[in-house]
């Protein structure tokens, strides 16, 4: 198939950036979206021009490295699909395709389509773990967990940290990402001890990174390639309130 691409080119965070237009004449419908970009890039390199920078690694929809806005949609038009798992058969012969990076204050552009998502790592660092040192664990079957709870925790744990939720949100909020981790651990018995500190610290870090607040647009859920549900945000908000109340109580009890 033949396609016309309008790709965002930006040399660095300081550069203004603009779209650049390219035509590709022989794209296979079975190619993935990123293989199509490889094809474009190979051509550019062979002409001595700099290829389009973009992050990617697993190309299986699991590492969360890839991410770009395709025709206005984070990860492109197909629901529950990362950019690397999108295939060219989703597009028609002669289509024009617009490709942009994630746009959010907390995700500065590095180059072209690659952005800096290290804010996510810092949110996890603020409390997205269970404090258990290696070697101190009891037998794994000592704590039984109802299958339903384990399954729900797993639903939340499938978040790949791609950042599409932020890119899709009008407020550039990362509440879907944060709530997924808070809920994954908060659902499980192992995560109870630190449950309220965790939510308080992670939300504080989220805000400190410059992500916006959640005003229930729901765009994040629609864009999320892993089907992370808005309900996790509601759950996190309840935990957060409890955490604040608990903190006030301990302070006043002192």
């Amino acid at each position, binding site marked *: 198939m033949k396609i016309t691409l309008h790709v965002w080119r930006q*040399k660095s965070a300081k550069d203004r950036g603009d779209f650049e237009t390219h035509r590709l004449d022989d794209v*296979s419908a*079975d*190619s*993935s979206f990123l*293989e*199509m970009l*490889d094809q474009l*890039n*190979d051509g*550019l*390199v*062979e002409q*001595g021009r*700099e*290829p389009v*920078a973009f992050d*990617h*690694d*697993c*190309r*299986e*929809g*699991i*590492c*969360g*490295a890839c991410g770009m806005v395709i025709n206005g949609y984070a990860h492109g038009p197909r629901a529950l699909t990362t950019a690397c*798992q999108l295939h060219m058969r989703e597009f028609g012969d002669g289509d024009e395709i617009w490709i942009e990076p994630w746009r959010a204050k907390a995700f500065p552009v590095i180059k072209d389509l690659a952005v*800096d*998502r*290290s804010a*996510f*790592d*810092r949110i*996890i*660092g*603020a409390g997205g*773990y*269970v404090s*258990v040192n*290696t*070697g*101190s*664990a*009891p037998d*794994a*079957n000592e*704590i*039984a*967990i109802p*299958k339903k709870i*384990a*399954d729900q925790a*797993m639903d939340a*744990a499938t978040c*790949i*940290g791609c950042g599409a939720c932020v890119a899709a949100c009008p407020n550039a909020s990362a509440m879907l990402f944060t709530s997924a981790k808070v809920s*994954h651990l908060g659902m*499980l018995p*192992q995560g109870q001890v630190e449950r309220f500190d965790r939510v308080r610290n992670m939300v504080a870090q989220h805000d400190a990174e410059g992500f916006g607040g959640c005003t229930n647009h729901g765009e994040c859920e629609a864009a999320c390639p892993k089907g992370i549900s808005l309900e996790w945000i509601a759950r996190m908000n309840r935990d957060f309130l409890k955490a604040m109340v608990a903190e006030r109580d301990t302070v006043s009890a002192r």
Partner: protein
Amino acid sequence: MELRSNAPEGPIETAWERHRFDMKLVNPANKRKFTVLVVGTGLAGGSAAATLAELGYNVKAFCFQDSPRRAHSIAAQGGINAAKNYQGDGDSIYRLFYDTVKGGDFRSRERNVYRLAQLSVEIIDQAAAQGVPFAREYGGLLANRSFGGAQVSRTFYARGQTGQQLLLGCYQALSRQIDAGNVEMHARTEMLELIVDNGRARGIVTRDLLTGKIDTHFGDAVILATGGYGNAYFLSTNAMGSNATAAWRAHRKGALFANPCYTQIHPTCIPVHGTHQSKLTLMSESLRNDGRVWVPKKKEDCGKDPRKIPESDRDYYLERKYPAFGNLVPRDIASRSAKEVCDEGRGVGPEVDGRRLGVYLDFADAIERLGEDAVRDRYGNLFEMYERITDENPYKTPMRIYPAVHYTMGGLWVDYNLQSTIPGLFVLGEANFSDHGANRLGASALMQGLADGYFVIPYTLGNYLGHHGREILANTVDASSASTKAAVGDVEARIEKLLGIGGKKSPDHFHRRLGQIMWDKCGMARNKAGLEEALVEIPKLREEFYSNLAVPGSGDDFNQTLVKATRVADFLEIGELMVRDALNREESAGGHFREEHQTPEGEARRDDENFTYVAAWEFNGVGVEPTLHKEQLEFEYVKLTQRSYK
């Protein structure tokens, strides 16, 4: 050079425990004086970095992705083995040990494997405590499945995303240490050279992938956990960035490289669709628990709609050839059998380059037996992934699969303490050669990476520093040391060279061609003539690379073409070593099948008399024949037999 395994003698059951007792300890106050560099933060490196930091060492960790959470380990689907015997189906540490040695076609070190089986149990405890949401039964206890040729159910899993969940557990532990200031994390940073000073590994030279800055980092020991070299084949199930550079650079600095020809070709991957293919996608092996593998009996049927081919015209070749194990035979056997039927012209699926390379993996019986919902419950996400890639619905029409390069059993040689032949350089996870012999069993790589990182290196590193710490601390290595200057100079020269060639072809172009040579001549089946051809073709390709490579842009910003070029340059060297090793090994063992060495029925034939050794190669220069060193393998517990899965 004499290769000593340093494995403790005496009864195997207590070997690790005795060794732990015999090893030196570093007292808590002294740990703070030591800095450890951990290159790679996948399961092996991430678990090591977190644990060493918990113990009180200063840790500096490195990965080339933008976050440790994205290491290739994240892609592991099927599960992790552990000898918990929670199912009471006859499993034990001894059985896991035995299965692993046998599955590896008797080419691994018994004592390492025994320790691995022992530690497997603790890994599950640790992961569960971290909140890894393993699959559970209705009673709330952990669920297991049987996996990849095992006759017991010992595989723990988290849907089809076990690697993801284990890595997140490990990444979270690491993040906690980063936040606490105990680990200095350098993401988007690639190690390009090892610094060896006074005979010890003391530092690394890195390149910041965003700014291009060449930097040095120093420590009292260096740990490499940089994954496997399967991408030497270009097309593989490995992540696009997986590369051999760190291990290869250590090899060039004196670390012996063991068994490079042992590569695992995974039987259940989605077939190649065309020439722009960039990587191959694995369909978890767990699918073979319920799917039945077949091809048409007659070539004429190969283009037909599979649903219209009557039962009597189908050849369920694995069930036919291996009635005891059927569709669950080990990976190497399943892969080779698929190649055989396709070579006979009975492959299925669309033609690519005039050939049909695919076999069916059919769920019709399973759906009839269990119902579509139960099948969806077990494999839903895999089926979805398959449909997304191929546009075919596997609930309705059989999946098509074909083998693809998946894992490398070879790697840097290490002793029982996971130390390479360079003192102070330790190697963990897929990057070392250790525990899988000539073939790795399913769900055993995650186990090995985590055993190495959580439970072995914390002890053996302490032992090294306990013995040599004083001497190391007394010998300062810094930017002004001659060894550092030479290493930095080498890196700068390499980068400059790659940027200055000014040719016409992209790094991918050369990588693809190398991959084709490797796949054709050093792939699922190898022979002398083909390997000798490859030994001519690879150096030629290398020459062309250095005369016609195009790398636009500069060395001081985010230049992905340059990064790719540095990696391909090293693949062009390691590929040659893989071929040499394959040529040397005049037997068939596990993933290494030499056509000259097979039984009349076409099964692999080992040569225990002459090849029960680890082939560890010493680098003598590019294009120069390396020196072979042998570590003889002793088998005291497992009886060497011809593997039979009939």
